[in-house]
């Protein structure tokens, strides 16, 4: 069962590409039988009562940490989610309590002090109060608890170009503890800028992915060669961030990715709400994870073809 996730990923991507459906339909279109097409339709949807949305995390890096509070909106709303100001936001690790301040110029963004950092092994508790989302005149309180797992530093990464998929594949060499059940998230930076910048571009795996705790060049992240970030120059630095995450956050990321993949009756079941970890009916996620980094330098003359 070591690499089930890997297989599922490969199969999932094939299914995502809908290559079989496309091929069948291509054949039908080829002979002029199907006009399988898409078309915009008017759809009247109900709107659910608005709810608080929490988006924030604690990592083991000492830095200013941010947390965003907003409200849910109707599905077809043509504007950004309204932010929630004036809340009291506290993060506690059971020993110290950090009080977050709201940014003056960006309402809804709350920040910690610059020397705030999490410690692996501790559990971080979030408390949000002094907000009235349902506008009933009574203040509500929301809480969340997130344990901060540890992560081991990766040894190295390599990069390969895959013609079939037209992607740059990032391959990881690392070791981890095979005794424990661990979950990882991978994100990419190019020259210090995060390029996996939405949840759909995060890559999450369980350690079943590792062979007895060893990763010997496994494919963990990709850069689309068709995008701007897929064009490299001499000296570009590609950095892989490896995060130790909880199973709960792993499930959350997977669910978001599944929901935003598109619904086709051949392969999808009924859509479902993404599971969060905030109390009192609030949406979103408060996560805690530890991070480590490994980089490589791009050289123009080097052979990046598949080995």
């Amino acid at each position, binding site marked *: 069962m070591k*690499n089930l996730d*890997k*297989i*599922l990923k490969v199969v999932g991507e094939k299914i995502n590409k809908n290559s*079989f*459906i496309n*091929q069948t339909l291509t*054949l039908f279109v*080829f*002979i002029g*039988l*199907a*006009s*399988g*097409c*898409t*078309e*915009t*339709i*008017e*759809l009247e*949807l109900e709107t*659910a009562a*608005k709810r608080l949305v929490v*988006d924030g995390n604690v990592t083991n890096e000492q830095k200013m940490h941010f947390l965003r509070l*907003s*409200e849910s*909106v109707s*599905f*077809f*709303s*043509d504007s*950004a*989610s309204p932010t929630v100001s004036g809340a009291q936001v506290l993060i506690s690790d059971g020993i110290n309590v950090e009080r977050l301040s709201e940014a003056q110029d960006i309402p809804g963004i709350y920040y910690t002090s610059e020397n705030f950092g999490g410690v692996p092994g501790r559990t971080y508790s979030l408390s949000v109060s002094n907000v009235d989302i349902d506008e009933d005149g009574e203040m509500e309180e929301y809480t969340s608890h997130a344990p901060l797992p540890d992560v081991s530093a990766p040894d190295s990464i390599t990069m390969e170009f895959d013609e*079939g998929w037209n992607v740059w594949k990032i391959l990881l060499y690392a070791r981890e503890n095979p005794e424990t059940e661990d979950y990882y998230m991978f994100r990419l930076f190019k020259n210090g800028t995060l390029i996996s*910048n939405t*949840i*759909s571009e995060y890559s999450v795996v369980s350690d079943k992915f590792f062979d007895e705790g060893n990763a010997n060049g*496994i*494919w963990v992240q990709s850069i689309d060669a068709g995008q701007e970030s897929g064009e490299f120059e001499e000296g570009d630095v590609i950095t892989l961030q490896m995060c130790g995450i909880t199973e709960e956050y792993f*499930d959350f990321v997977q*669910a978001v990715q599944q*929901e*935003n993949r*598109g*619904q*086709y*009756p*051949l*392969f*999808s*079941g*009924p*859509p*479902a709400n*993404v599971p969060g970890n905030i109390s009192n009916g609030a*949406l*979103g*996620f408060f996560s805690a994870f530890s991070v480590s980094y490994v980089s490589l330098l791009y050289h123009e003359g080097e052979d990046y073809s*598949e080995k």
Partner: protein
Amino acid sequence: MIYFRNIHVFFLCCFFSLTSRADGNVPPGNTVNGYVKDARNGEMLVGATVAIKGTGQGTVTNVYGFFSLDLPVGENVLQFGFLGYNTFELEVNNSRRVTIELQPKTQTIAEVVVKGEGNEGSSRFPLLGLEKMESSSISNIPVLMGETDPMKAIQMLPGVSATSEGSSNFTVRGGNPDQNLLLMDEAIVYNAGHLLGFFSVFNNDAIKNIQLYKGDFPASEGGRLSSVLDVRTRDGNMKYFEGSAGIGLISSRLNLEGPISKDKASFLVSGRRTYLDLFLPLAEDEEIRNNKLYFYDANVKINWIAGDKDRFFLSGYMGRDLFKDELAQLDFGNNTFTFRWNHVFSPSLFSNFSFVRSGYDYFLGTSEKDIEDMEWVSEFNDYMFGADFSWFITPEHTLRYGLRSIYHRIDPGVVSGMDENSLFQEVDLPRNNSLEHGIYFSHTAELSPWMILRMGLRYSVFQNIGPGKSFVFDEYYEVTDTVEYSKGNVYNTYVGLEPRAGISIFFNPRLSGKMSYSRTRQYIQLASNSTSSTPLDVWFPSSPNIKPQIADQVSLGFFKTSRNGVFEHSLEVFNKWMQNTIDFKDHPNLILNETLEGEVRAGTSWARGFEIMTRWNTIRFKGWLGYTFLKSERVAPEINEGRPFLSPYDHTHDFSLFMNYRLSTRVSVSGNWVYYTGAPVTMPVGRYEVDGEFIPLYSERNAERMPDYHRLDLSMTIDGKRGGQWVFSIYNVYGRKNPWAINFVNEDGEPYNIKAEKTYLFSIVPSISYTLEF
């Protein structure tokens, strides 16, 4: 194995006591038995009526064309009839065996027969929700791309609809598609789709007739909650050699049949293959040129009349689909093999013994062989033995009893790398073995000329046998323990009684009423929460964690004929309760998951509604109009926060209209129109943003609906003078863009401009096919 042994003992006791009584206790009067055949090709006629003239008493032939009838003392005249055939009368004054050959009225009329329940003999059989169709009437229904398909034909019947646009898969009374038992010559077909389900594996050229039981099953059938589709293949012409060849837009077909020994043995070979991939090399795009996409299938049947008492049948099916492009390859298919022996023990005791093997397997792999490539194979095999006895004790009393045992062997999946240095370690989900037995007994009693009673009882047994693995789950569905079982160890057994009962009352010769109750149990199900069929099926059985699904259904119906039998009207009301029905948690992992059972969230379901149907049948003009009202709901404690939700197949209103009009002896036109309420779906009712990504907030499960579905199809059939036949058809004549899927997209990269977008598969689809008979 104790249960298994007990059943054999019980069964053998029943068998000997009944057979000895059948032999030794001949009632007074004469017994006539035998077969009713088509005079033209010797094909057995199923459901032909045998009536004692002037008494209103009689019987119908069984699925092998056999009947047995006890006559009152003295001289009697027997009338043999079958819709579209000339009636035949025979004077009988002693016990004898007969073989009756009925002449088709005229060949052209015989081809457009739509056989109804109103056929006098069959309406006397107290089974509700039974629909029959002859292959000749199936071929009159206009279909997608002109590919005649029995599964598409039954979707036109009340209570039955397609699971999604263009699919040959169907749902009965709001049930899941895996609750339909699909039988081809008694072999269970586990995946009936070709080309992603747009066409079915049933080749109409090889089919004699189909029967669909919508929940009120005879005691001999079991194992599924919603329906039994019994497909019987033709035996092959006993009189002379004949064949047909056809070509359509999708496939070309060839059917050959004829006597091996005249009136003694015959064969039938029927095959299809799509041929469009032959044109792929002409494509401009190089990627398309190397693609592969085709399916083929073949039916073979041999039957031999070994004497007055014995008849043997050997039939097989083999089909395969293949898709291949530069990235991946997928192929899958069914194969079945059936051996049957009909033996007439005595004039009033008919028996059938069957040995059946059926299998389904698929392969998914990457096209090239390098270290990242892998292949995934999965296989499902069934071995079945069945014995079935019909004892025609007196004209008023018929007993049917027997046994069926199936060994299921499921290999859910083996995934392995194709290269020595593969990055993949092998994933091998353990093989799953189980046994499913049913013994059954049913008694049909004509209590008076106006009342027939049917009482049946089925005792089903399901056993998981080792080698196997069973998981113990805690309340959070986390595995807390794994138990391994050794080979042959029966580690779990479920048993249950399945009573079936029905009563028919004849108010007058034109009006009858029927009422029935049935309980069914289902021990094997599909791990799928999608409304479309995919080739990557995973069937999983009941086990210590998964209880058998149970359904109880009561129905009440009225049947009326008018205008001397031209019109048949029926009204049927049903109510169905189901326990332990299978559903899955949100975002389940159903693929290659060894602990799949941890994803199941069982609940209860119910369905209620009524079906109205009017059929008419004159020489020139025939058709039917059906309407179904349905409400089908489910509830499971851990789904939708425990609140009831609609079945994804809850089509509140469902109309279907079929008409066939004969313009001349050579030209006929057909049309059908279907309409149903859009399927319940889960839709977003809000949106929120986390880490730069929009996340939809959903309604309760299946709380919204897709737009209503409707479509009109037309076809014209022209019989050529020299035995050829042209069929022109148009699918979706007015080009309704019925949505297959609804997705939400950002327009022009504007993050806050979200639009709903529907994907539709087929607008107007014209097609043409030609069949040559020789």
